[in-house]
Structures are given as structure tokens and as C-alpha cells.
């Protein structure tokens, strides 16, 4: 990648981002505009993937809401992302936890606790 583009991307990146990996349970607070007002919306789930590099990096969190699997992808360096709380760290052997999608019941949210 050219230096110029690297510089542009660097300027977009946030300086302080908590360290978290695939398998960790996180709570993500994002700003949403509702009826002309801005408020924080929390989304708690297991990180099932992180992809992309530089300012384009995204991660996907998955949770079971009312018996239905819900996944949401966030742009890591987005200014709309207020903060990320790492609630639990998990020990996993995969970079992408797509196998959780096929799991039913309590297995679906079970990731071995680690470190």
C-alpha cells in the first residue's frame, strides 16, 4: 500500500482501543440518532470475527436475543462507536467462530473461559 494512503488511514484511526480477541465477550456502545436525539445503544455479544486492517478493520459480535441469533458488525475505528467494554475473555482455537451459528441452546453462547 502506498505511503500516502497509509497516512490517510492512520489519521482516521483511534488511539485507544481496548485489546480484545475473537471469543471474548464485549459490550459495544454505539451512538444512534433517534427522533432527532442522540443516545447510546449497547450491544453485548461474543466476538466471532475480526477482519480488515488499518482504519478499515471491523469486528462482528453475536448474541442470542429472544431465541434468535443476532449478529452485528461494527467498524472498529468509527467515530460513532463510543466505547468497547471487554466483559469476559474466551479461549478459542479458531480465528472465525462461525461454528457458533449452528449451535442450539446453551451451547450457542459457550466459549471456554481463559486467561
Amino acid at each position: 500500500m502506498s505511503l500516502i494512503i497509509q497516512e490517510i488511514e492512520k489519521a482516521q484511526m483511534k488511539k485507544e482501543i481496548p485489546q480484545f480477541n475473537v471469543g471474548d465477550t464485549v459490550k459495544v456502545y454505539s451512538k444512534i440518532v433517534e427522533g432527532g436525539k442522540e443516545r447510546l445503544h449497547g450491544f453485548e455479544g461474543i466476538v466471532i470475527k475480526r477482519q480488515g486492517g488499518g482504519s478499515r478493520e471491523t469486528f462482528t459480535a453475536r448474541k442470542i436475543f429472544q431465541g434468535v441469533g443476532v449478529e452485528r458488525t461494527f467498524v472498529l475505528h468509527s467515530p460513532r462507536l463510543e466505547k468497547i467494554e471487554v466483559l469476559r475473555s474466551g479461549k478459542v482455537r479458531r480465528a472465525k467462530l462461525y461454528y457458533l451459528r449452528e449451535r442450539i441452546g446453551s451451547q450457542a453462547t459457550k466459549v471456554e473461559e481463559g486467561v
Partner: protein
Amino acid sequence: MMDNLLGKKIGMTQIFDESGNMVPVTVIEAGPCVVTQLKTKETDGYNAIQVGFGQNKKLNKPMKGHLKESQARYLREFRNENTGGIQVGQEIKVEIFSPGDMLVISGITIGKGFAGNIKRHHHARGPMSHGSKSHRITGSIGAGTTPGRVFKGLSMPGRMGAVRASVKSIKVVRVDAEKNLLLVKGTVPGKKGNLVSIKRTQVAKLVAFDKQTEKKAEKKADKKAEAKA
């Protein structure tokens, strides 16, 4: 008024706008350019400016004579009706554009070599199995004895790409005057490092057109109201 610039395509990335949305942008190193010649209706039959971009270390004597002090590597001509106030030797920088401007950007597209009909003309491919052998072939190119020839302009395999193409109505997202960078929304023809020519579009004309149509619509509405009354 300065409406034209030459630049080098650097590549693509994504940036966040004011509301936090991600915008795909192409980064162009635009300018600084030099006006190398002014063409006028009296001498050349039309109004245009010739713009130079880049550095050329090895210039032959005729080129030196034409360029005077500048050492431009690429020269391109732009039709420009209002050349008033523009002088030969004048420098053009990215500042002539500001975020929100609409541009037309032209360049040489990526060459694909000798390409088949599927890639070149978006034909559908044949079945890949069940005894079929017509996987990616051209297919029929016409009937038999009548008309007894192949019609002109029929889509056939051949050289694809590496031709000049333009993208119209491309929006300026950011201008970096210090680094001579122009960030525009969306894609621009060509590979990284390609020369692109940038032109401001005549948005003003479009606005005027919109106003005309608006007025017409208003008149219609008025007439309807009158008819009802």
C-alpha cells in the same frame, strides 16, 4: 475560471465523514500543474488551455522552447471557454476544488488483453456439464443463407480495456492543499499510478435546468388550482 487539473491515481481507501459514515474514496495526487499554452479563437479556432503536470528531466530543445521554465512531463489540453485571467506559466493547484464539487474524471482503463464474449460483452455462459461442450464459447453469430453475412457491430471477442474512459458526477470529499491530494467518492478509471484528467462539471447548468422544470411544474399546479376553483 480554473476548472481543469491533471493528477496521478494513488489508490483507494475508506474514510469517515462528519456524521460517521464510511465513504469509499479514491486518492488522487492532483497537481501542481502549469499552464503551458493558451489557445484562442483568433489563432486556433477554439478556446482551450494546455496544462502540464509532472517532472521531466530529459527535455529536448523544441520541448524546452515550448515549455519555457517549466519541466512538465505530461501535457493535456482542455476546452475552456472563459480563459480570461489565465496566463501562460500560471500554477494550478488542488485548491481550485472544494469538498462538494462535482467532477468528471478521465483516464485509461485497466487493459484486459484479448477477452472473450463473457467478460467483454457480458454474455451468459453455456452449461458446464451434462455433455455440453459450449462452456464459454461465443455461440451463434447469425442466420444462414439469408442474410448470408454477419451483421456489423456484432459483439465478438477481442481486445478489452486500455481505452480512455470517463466517470461523470464524481464528488469531491476532501482536498489536502498541503500534500496536493484530492479525495473523491467512488472509483476512477485506471490502475494506480495512472495519469487522470480532472474537470469540473457544469453543475450550474443543471441547477438552472432544474429551476426551469420547477417553474413549469408550479405553473401547471397553478392552472390546475384555477380549473378547480
